[in-house]
C-alpha cells in the first residue's frame, strides 16, 4: 500500500490482570508488541485463533481499552490523552461493529431511539432532519423505515447486523472496526452481510479493520490480511500472497486447516498438533515453536526458543515473523505433518 496511512499502530501491548484480589495475580499479555497500518479506503483482515488477541486490538483502536504500551495514531495524531472535545471528534472518525448482534443492542430501546444516538451525541441532526437521515441510513443497509418502531430482538440476526452497521455509519466514520461481524450467521445471511460490507466500502471509501477467524470471509473482503498468534502478529501481507504463498509456519497450518471444498477429493487437510491453550506460556523466543512443524523438522533449533522473531519482509510483499522464513518450502506440496490420529 502506498500513501499516507490512516491508522498506524506501533508496538501495541495490552496486559490484563487476572480478576480477583491480593498479590500473585498473573498478568495475561493479550496483545504483544503489534504494529501495522491501515490505509484510507483499505480493508485489513485480522485473523487468528480464539484468544489470539483480535478483539483486544479492535477495542484498543476504538479506545474501549487503554493500551499498556505502544502508540495508536489516526492520521498521524496520537490517540492517547485525548481531551473531551477531541475525544468526541475521534468518535466520529472511528466506529465499531460488534459480533454479538443479540447483545449489541439495548433490548428496551426501539431502533429509532438507538439510531438517534449518534445524531444526538454529536448534534448532527434533530427533528424532521433526524427522521430523514435515520430513514436514509436504514435504507442504505437494506432495511425499511416501518422497522423503526420495532425492538432489536424482533429482528433476525442478519437484520440486526445491518442495524449495527447502520449505527456505526451514522457518524460517517473514516475507519470502521468490525469484530467478527458475520460469525454466527448462516452462510446465506453471511453472504448478504459480506456483500453489504463490500458495497459500503466501495461507495463510501471506508477503511476497515475486519476481524474474523473465518479466512473465507476475510479473503473475500480484505486486500491485506494480518495473522495473529498468541497476541503477536506473525504474518501480514496481500491476500493472494498470504493464501497462496504463506511464509510463516502458523499461517500455513491455518490455511491448511480450512476445508478445501473439493468434493470427492477426500480429506486432505494439514493438521497441526496441539492447541494454543495446551502450551505453557512462552517467555522468550517464538510463541508458535512448541506446535511448529518446521521447528521440529529443523531439529528444534535453540534460536526459536530463545530469540523472539521480528516481522521481516518476506517474498511476495508481505512481512513475516519467523527466523527460518527463507527455508520454507512451498506449501501444499507439503511436508506439513499429518497428526492427531488414533493410537
Amino acid at each position: 500500500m502506498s500513501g499516507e496511512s490512516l491508522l498506524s499502530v506501533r508496538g501495541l501491548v495490552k496486559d490484563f490482570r487476572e480478576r480477583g484480589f491480593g498479590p500473585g495475580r498473573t498478568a495475561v499479555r493479550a496483545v504483544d508488541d503489534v504494529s501495522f497500518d491501515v490505509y484510507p479506503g483499505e480493508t485489513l483482515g485480522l485473523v487468528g485463533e480464539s484468544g489470539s488477541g483480535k478483539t483486544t486490538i479492535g477495542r484498543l483502536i476504538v479506545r474501549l481499552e487503554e493500551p499498556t504500551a505502544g502508540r495508536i495514531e489516526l492520521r498521524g495524531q496520537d490517540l492517547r490523552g485525548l481531551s473531551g472535545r477531541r475525544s468526541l471528534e475521534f468518535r466520529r472518525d472511528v466506529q465499531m461493529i460488534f459480533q454479538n448482534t443479540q447483545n449489541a443492542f439495548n433490548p428496551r430501546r426501539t431502533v429509532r431511539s438507538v439510531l438517534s444516538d449518534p445524531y444526538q451525541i454529536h448534534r448532527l441532526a434533530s427533528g424532521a432532519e433526524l427522521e430523514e437521515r435515520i430513514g436514509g441510513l436504514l435504507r442504505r443497509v437494506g432495511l425499511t423505515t416501518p422497522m423503526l418502531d420495532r425492538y432489536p430482538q424482533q429482528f433476525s440476526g442478519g437484520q440486526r447486523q445491518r442495524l449495527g452497521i447502520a449505527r456505526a455509519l451514522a457518524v460517517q466514520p473514516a475507519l470502521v472496526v468490525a469484530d467478527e461481524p458475520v460469525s454466527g450467521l448462516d452462510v446465506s445471511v453471511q453472504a448478504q452481510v459480506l456483500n453489504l460490507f463490500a458495497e459500503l466500502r466501495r461507495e463510501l471509501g471506508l477503511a476497515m479493520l475486519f476481524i474474523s477467524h473465518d479466512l473465507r470471509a476475510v479473503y473475500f473482503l480484505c486486500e491485506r490480511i494480518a495473522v495473529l498468534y498468541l497476541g503477536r502478529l506473525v504474518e501480514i501481507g496481500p491476500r493472494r500472497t498470504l493464501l497462496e504463498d504463506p511464509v510463516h509456519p502458523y499461517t500455513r497450518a491455518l490455511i491448511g486447516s480450512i476445508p478445501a471444498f473439493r468434493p470427492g477429493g477426500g480429506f486432505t487437510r494439514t493438521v497441526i498438533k496441539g492447541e494454543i491453550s495446551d502450551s505453557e506460556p512462552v517467555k522468550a523466543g517464538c510463541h508458535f515453536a512448541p506446535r511448529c512443524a518446521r521447528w521440529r523438522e529443523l531439529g528444534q533449533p535453540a534460536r526459536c526458543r530463545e530469540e523472539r522473531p521480528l516481522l521481516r519482509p518476506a517474498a511476495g510483499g508481505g512481512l513475516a515473523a519467523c527466523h527460518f522464513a527463507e527455508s520454507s518450502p512451498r506449501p501444499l506440496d507439503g511436508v506439513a505433518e499429518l497428526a492427531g490420529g488414533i493410537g
Partner: protein
Amino acid sequence: MKTQVAVLVTEPRPAARRRVPLLTTVGASLGLLVLLTIVIGPWLIGQDPYAIDIGNRFAGPGGAHWLGTDELGRDVASRIAYGARATALIAVGAVAIATAIAIPLGVLTGFLGGWVDLVVTRVVDLFFAIPSLLVAIGVIGLFGASVTTTVLALGLSYWPFYTRLIRSAVVGLRSRPNVDAARVLGASRLRVIRTEILTGLVPLVLVQTTVLLGFAILDEAALGFLGLGVQPPQASWGSRLAESREFILVHPELALVAGVPIVLAVFAMNLLSDSLRDRLDAKRTG
C-alpha cells in the same frame, strides 16, 4: 416414539417458562382489588374506622357492618379499608426509600467499579449482614414506633439487599456490547447510564418493586405483632392482625378477616412479580 423431558442441546435456553396465565390473571385481579380497597374502599363502606360502639362489640357481619365489628365495636370493614391505606403508605414509602438509595448507589458502584465500588460494596455487605427485620427493629429502637418510623425502618432494612441486586445487574449490563457501542459513539458516562443502564434496570426494578411491596406488607404485620409497628388506634393491616390475635380463641373470624387481606395482597404481589419476571425475561431473549 416416546419422548422425554429434556432441553435442546443446541438451544441455549428453552422458550420462556410457560406460566398458567390464570395465575397472572388472579394476581392482577387481586392487586386491583387491593387498589380499589385503598382508593374507594373507605368511601364505599362509609363507616368511621375509629368510631367505638361499645354496645355492639363482636357483632357478626351484616347490616351497616359488612364484616362485623371488633372488640371495641368498630367497623371491621372500614378498619381494613383504612388500614389498607396506612399499610400501602408504609409499603410504598419503604420501597421508595429503598429504591431511592439502591438505584443511585448500585449504579454508581456497579458502573464505576474501582475503589468506589470496593469501599461501598463492603459497606453494603456490612448492612446486608444484619437480618433486615433486625435492622428495622433497631431503627424503631432508636426513634420509637410510629407510621413514619415504620416506613423508615423498612426502607432502611431493604436497601442493602436491593443495592446489591442493582449493582450486580449493572455490572452485567455494563459489560454488554451495547454499552461499548454507546461509548464508541461518544456517549458520555451519564448518557450511557441513562440510555443503556437505567433502561436495562427497568425490568429488575419493576419486579423488585412488586416483591418488596409484598415484603413490606408482611414486615409491617410482623412489626405490628411484635408491638413495634403502627400504634393503636391507628388502623393498619398489621396492627389489625395483631389486635385481633388477642381474641383469637373467642373470635377467630376476626383474625381471619384481618389476616386474609394481607395474605391475598402479598400473594397478588408475588404472582405479579413472578409473571412480570417471566414476561420481561421472555421479551429480553426475543
